[in-house]
């Protein structure tokens, strides 16, 4: 069996110049034709494994121990030149962001053919023919035209196909895919993952599949290693690790992920954050101990070894068998039906938006971003908007907050007509929570001032004392301790920043809150915190929420009703359970199928 091992990483250790370890004793083996997943939160060190194999570690980091063997060769003993020769030939890479992975000023054909030349195709004609063959293999239409196209003319999904075609072009023995679908739409994610799996089978390639998405890992991987704070805490068959984990961290990740079917449970909330390379030095015991629901004294003093708990299944926990004791709290059923108010906070009738676009020759085109939308939002109601990028979700939120003008139809907000009533009337009543918590907060202001920013410019009607009082209430509402008020945004974690953002939007007591993809960039455990916060706020029913998300499970977890948008139109709307449980429109069915992943349908 061993001669089929393509990649063998042995007690790999990567450290900073300061001696702090980023990866610790990583052992990982992939056999030919298998897909091995590496999952974990951001900062766990997943990408470092890929960089170590490619010899592209960032400056200041080095392999301080261990070895990487590739198909019988010890990479860590070879010189840089020979290692580089393996890249693109024997080891292929699929990047995280296809949109920026190709040179914007060279044609697709130029870049692909250049790569083909490097792997030994002699004439221009054979290269072009091979490129077309590869494009056809990955399901790209009109492959000949594609050769002349520039990267910006293709969608992210198409570019990722091009990159997959390039990665597999040389029949490599190993392909490393680092979060290959994170930047893509759900419907495309599924196709790309299937493509990787299919191509791998055709070429008998070993694949190292790095992802933070449990569901995705469950769908494609044969084996999975869970990485936490630079250590593998559990490894084994994907099926088992996702559905019957033997390590508390794997279990917690699982319980923190909202699902699209089955009973609704409260999401698991992990306290604190993952320790960084410096903090880990002070931890003689299990690195997960501070956040583990099962931690005991022994966990803080002695580190558990990665020991076998079943056939080819290992877990680094003192009590792997107790993992099942961690359970989710059932969500309170029957979400207080009476709490919805009678009044409509938002009503759209025949709402449409057309943009005028100029191309580079000055010709004008009309683009209909939204067409004939009819929907309403009641007081206290949480409504989701789902659909892939370009379906008009963001255009709609721009109309509602008043960043764009309505082209056709009527948009009534809090009883006023958006088109005719003065803008100032809406300011306090409609608030937007920004997608990127980092850039939305002025780094030079303290949290206390940021949260009550909405009060500024309204004269001295608010004394310092009332303002401080308000800060405290708002922070309590988003479950942040009051001392946060005196900190700066940089001193908070991503999840805390996003809570500050929400608190800030709540400051003026809005009737309608609009949240555009507010959890999309966050880790599962942080996302769980925000989603649980929204669920808690929903019980108070002080405001209505429009939640834009590409993730159906997120919408199901938080919202009462949902709209499904496709190409600028609402193709379906209704209560979440009905829409996602029994989708009527073909597009909704596609979305739901994509979100559930291939394995669910095969069980």
């Amino acid at each position, binding site marked *: 069996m061993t001669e089929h091992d393509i990649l063998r990483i042995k007690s790999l250790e990567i450290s900073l110049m300061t001696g702090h370890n980023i990866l610790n004793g990583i052992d990982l083996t992939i056999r030919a034709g298998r897909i091995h997943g590496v999952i974990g939160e951001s900062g766990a060190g997943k990408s470092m494994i890929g960089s170590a194999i*490619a010899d592209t570690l960032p400056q200041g980091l080095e392999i301080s121990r261990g070895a990487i063997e590739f198909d019988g060769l010890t990479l860590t003993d070879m010189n840089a030149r020979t290692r580089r020769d393996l*890249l*693109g*030939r024997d080891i292929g890479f699929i990047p995280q962001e296809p949109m920026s*992975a190709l*040179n*914007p000023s060279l044609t697709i054909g130029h870049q692909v053919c250049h*790569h083909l030349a490097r792997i030994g195709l002699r004439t221009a004609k054979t290269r072009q023919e091979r490129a077309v063959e590869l494009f056809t293999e990955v399901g790209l239409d009109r492959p000949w035209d594609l050769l002349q196209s520039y990267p910006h003319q293709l969608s992210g999904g198409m570019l990722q196909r091009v990159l997959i075609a390039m990665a597999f072009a040389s029949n490599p023995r190993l392909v490393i895919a680092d979060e290959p679908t994170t930047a893509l739409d759900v419907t495309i994610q599924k196709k790309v993952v299937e493509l990787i799996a299919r191509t791998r089978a055709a070429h008998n390639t070993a694949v190292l599949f790095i992802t933070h998405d449990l569901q995705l890992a469950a769908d494609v991987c044969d084996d999975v290693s869970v990485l936490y704070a630079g250590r593998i805490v559990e490894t084994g068959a994907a099926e088992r690790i996702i559905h019957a984990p033997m390590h508390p961290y794997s279990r917690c990740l699982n319980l923190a992920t909202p699902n699209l079917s089955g009973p609704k449970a409260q999401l698991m909330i992990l306290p604190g954050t993952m320790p960084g390379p410096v903090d880990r030095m002070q931890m003689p015991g299990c690195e997960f101990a501070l956040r583990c629901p099962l931690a005991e004294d022994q966990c803080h003093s002695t580190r558990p070894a990665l020991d076998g708990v079943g056939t080819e299944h290992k877990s680094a926990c003192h009590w792997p068998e107790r993992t099942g004791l961690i359970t989710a709290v059932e969500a309170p059923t029957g979400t207080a039906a009476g709490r919805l108010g009678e009044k409509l906070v938002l009503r759209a009738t025949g709402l449409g938006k057309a943009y005028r676009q100029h191309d580079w020759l000055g010709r004008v085109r009309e683009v209909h971003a939204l067409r004939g939308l009819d929907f309403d939002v009641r007081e206290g109601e949480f409504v989701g908007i789902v659909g892939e990028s370009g379906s008009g979700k963001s255009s709609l939120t721009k109309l509602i907050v008043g960043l764009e003008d309505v082209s056709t139809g009527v948009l009534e907000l809090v009883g006023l007509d958006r088109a005719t009533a003065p803008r100032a009337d809406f300011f306090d009543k409609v608030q937007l929570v920004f997608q990127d918590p980092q850039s939305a907060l002025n780094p030079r202001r303290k949290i206390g001032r940021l949260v009550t920013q909405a009060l500024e410019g309204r004269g001295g009607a608010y004394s310092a004392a009332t303002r401080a009082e308000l800060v405290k209430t708002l922070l309590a509402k988003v479950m942040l301790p009051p001392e946060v008020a005196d900190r700066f945004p940089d001193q908070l974690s991503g999840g805390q920043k996003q809570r500050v953002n929400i608190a800030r939007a709540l400051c003026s007591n809005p009737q309608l809150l609009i949240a555009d993809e507010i959890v999309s960039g966050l880790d599962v455990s942080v996302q769980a915190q925000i989603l649980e916060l929204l669920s808690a706020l929903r019980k108070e029913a002080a405001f209505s929420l429009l939640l834009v998300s590409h993730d159906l499970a997120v919408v199901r977890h938080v919202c009462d009703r949902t709209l499904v948008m496709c190409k600028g139109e609402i193709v379906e709307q209704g209560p979440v359970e009905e829409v996602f449980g029994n989708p009527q429109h073909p597009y909704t069915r596609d979305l739901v199928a994509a979100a559930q992943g291939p394995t669910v349908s095969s069980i």
Partner: protein
Amino acid sequence: MFIAILRVIVRRLLAIVPVFAVVTVLVFGALRILPVDPAQMSLPPSATIEQVEAKREAMGLNRPIWTQYSMWAQAAITGDLGESAQYRTSTAAVVLDRLPATIELVICALIFAVCVGMTGGLLIFAVRGTALESVGLVVTSAVMALPDFLLALLFILLLGVLIPIFPVNGRLDPGMQVPSYTGFLLIDAVLTGDFRVIVSAFEHIALPVMALGLAFSPTIVRVLHASLINTYQQSYIQQARLRGLSDREILFGQALKNAIVPVVILVGTQFGGLFGGTLLVEMIFSFPGLGNLMVKAMQTADLSVIMAISLIYCATTLIFNSIADALAYLLNPRLRNG
């Protein structure tokens, strides 16, 4: 595609026509405010008051300024830029006679600056992260601090006087003659096929070109270096590395085409400055171009020549701005076929 590119360039050039019209108004107005009498300047010092008065009337100097401008503009469109007070011939002929020398100087200086600047930028980038990079950047800053006329004087001292390799004035060795085929001395010299003449012509232009070009090159070094560093942070460079491309292939095959765009824009927008720099450099090297003519015209208050040369300066700046703009546009496929 070709037609479309042509359309872009023509469109940009047409856009500068109104700007240029405004510039002519400004320059014309400024020169009329000067306390000199063009009529008197264009007559011999012995002319009587009556003769001057008659000339004023003939030149339209007693009419309102906008009438004067419109007279000037109508004549200018037909190619008549008035008469030079100094040479007493057509201004257009005087200016056109000197223009080729300056064009030669400026083009050679530009080529020199781009070669030095690109090489410097690439070299400093190649040693990035080492102490040599800092050394390179300090040297660049030092050269940047030296203006063109100072460099000219230094070169005269160094390469003309101390180690006399290059002649320091004129365009040819004394006694040499080149028949004028094209008006461009360097080209004409090459056309003679006489090796001595060719060498002499190039030797004479060497110092002015180096002074002007070297003054311009540090900016190119800086912009190229910064632009390369920025380009190398893009993920397609990392991706190219993961496909096994060598450092050289990445630099010349992938990065340079993107990194060059800011340099193109810089050269285009700063070309006017280079052209203006010829004024002092020509004076220092007694180089018979527009700059020297301009200085003489100023000394003798030869208004029509000043006007013509000023407009050439302005037009060059505007045209090169537009060309750079169009080039940057064409180098970026995202703009080109969006």
